[in-house]
């Protein structure tokens, strides 16, 4: 099975599992670990007698945000089902793009109208959250396909704000 961690794709195989003791290989390296979930979403992992605490947040099915002591990782589990879905999705890619805010906020200003042609670097929308305004720009020349929100509206994180093509 494959697991994507940031930009790396690792090959992972379970060799054995007996209760908390697991043996597995990652990209050919063999690991023998003792792993238990100690709190909701928090694992204690003892590997070569080193003690690790790892926090897992399941963002969506098979997608995790994983915090080790020093760093956060985005991890995707790529099992057979995911692979199949990925192969099907490929054709649709890049057809349209959605601008969204990574965090919830309030739409301060919409700088464009539907149908507008915008240049690379143009700001299309300004969203504020917690005393700070963020400007969202397009990276290449595009056309505004549709505007999904109105000024003053409260929006969730990752909610589509503007669709460009």
């Amino acid at each position, binding site marked *: 099975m494959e697991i994507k961690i940031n930009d790396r794709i690792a090959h992972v195989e379970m060799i054995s599992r007996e209760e908390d003791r697991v043996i597995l290989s990652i990209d050919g390296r063999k690991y023998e670990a003792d792993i238990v979930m100690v709190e909701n979403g928090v694992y204690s992992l003892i590997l070569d007698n080193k003690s690790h605490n790892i926090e897992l947040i399941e963002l969506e099915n098979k997608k995790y945000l994983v915090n080790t002591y020093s760093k956060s990782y985005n991890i995707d*589990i790529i099992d057979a089902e995911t692979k199949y879905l990925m192969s099907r999705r490929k054709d649709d890619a890049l057809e349209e793009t959605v601008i969204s805010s990574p965090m919830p906020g309030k739409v301060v200003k919409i700088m464009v109208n539907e149908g507008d042609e915008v240049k690379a670097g143009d700001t299309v929308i300004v969203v504020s959250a917690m005393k700070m305004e963020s400007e969202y720009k397009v990276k290449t020349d595009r056309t505004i396909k549709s505007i999904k929100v109105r000024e003053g509206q409260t929006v969730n994180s990752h909610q589509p704000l503007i669709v460009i093509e």
Partner: protein
Amino acid sequence: MIKKVLVANRGEIAVRVMRSCREMGIISVAVYSEADRRAMHVRYADEAYFIGPSPSSESYLNTDKIIHAAKKSGADAIHPGYGFLSENAAFAGRCLEEGIVFIGPSPEAIRSMGDKITSRRLMTEAGIPVVPGTEKINSEKLALEKAREIGCPVMVKASAGGGGKGMRLVKNEKDIVGAVRSARSEAREAFGDDSIYIEKYIESPHHIEFQVLGDQHGNIIHLFERECSVQRRHQKIVEETPSPVMTQKVREEMGSFAVAAARAVNYAGAGTVEFIVDDHLNYYFLEMNTRLQVEHPITERVVGVDLVKQQIRIANGETLDIRQDELLQFGHAIECRIYAEDPEQNFMPSPGVIRHITEPLGLGVRHDGYVYEGYEIPLFYDPMMSKLIVWAGTRKEAIARLRRALYSYKITGVKTNIRFLERIMECPDFVNGQYNTHFVDKNIDFLLFPEKHDEKIEDVAIIAAFIDYATKIKKREDKIFSKNGKSNWKDCGRRISFMRY
């Protein structure tokens, strides 16, 4: 005697004030907006009053609603915390009119110190050093004269200015006329007013402030300094006391000036006199904050005084029970502010639901927070979640302790600046006490990009995610199994457990 205090604030400071109230046997009253029904200050208070919609302007900044809640609850005093109405002279005056004790200085003191020009004049009259500078100037000749008087480098600033417009840094006298000319033209363009003024430019400024306490009977003391130069975008993020650059002589001088500054406005209550200090320990009055500061706990820890209790006692009309010569700085304290923000995305706020918290504990650690597991940080207010304050006998040990505390401090669900703060504690400039307000900018690469790519740690992350996934798959399979009555998982588990010995 104050028996019931309404806290006109939210977040950690509201809880912190209520804690001292509880210790004094005073009933605490919370007010809350729509977004804050679940907030900790509402849960911690003895009583709670709803005051309106989430935006501060319709709730925490709405004088009428707060006065109404105070009346309804029978509170005899209001503590404003910091921010919101804490430096609003009109609100302080309104409390007076309504017969409610405002736990803070007089409206006059707030007003005088709130106005840059008035406070500068008052301080100059009281003999307190201010940043050398001029009044409005309209002639290039006068500008040149004044710049010579002050000595370069100087800043040319637009009187009507803001946002850096109409501002020029002049390092050599010969450039002054050109700078004044272009600043005026830019100011005219931007603000329709081309008057400018000149101020000494402090090259490596430290932000050092002194805590003062004054009672209603003319007694004023200072509780030493706080070094607040670690800032990003003019926002303090780490504070410490004593300041690593301070000397005993300068401390005493500045302390006396801080007391004099407070005396100049008949200050009663807790306040902070801010100075800008250069590398040679030349210091200039900057402003006075007529309220409790976010960073007050480091003073509390090193001096051993509960500042909120002192505020309440002073508001009660009591005489200060601490004498200046009794006070000493015992050990070293550092505070850092924990924000829900993403340092890697230009410190963009990261509101959301707190999934999991592990709070740092143990020797020398104070933690003033208000978020809890399952709590959703609202969009409407400041993203500061908590303050971590450590104390130790020495600065070196305090830094080690803060690193230890940050190491075991975990908040998931939102992004935080915890790792960024750890990097500050590892940064040589900070460790050596050699920093000024340019610290963050100067060290930003060190602070932001600490990690080497470590495949071993990645593998650890992979193992955890993989096991979580595999366990879920297994559970799903077991469910199907057990429905067919064929599961022998338990027996198997027992056998393995037995085999471990």
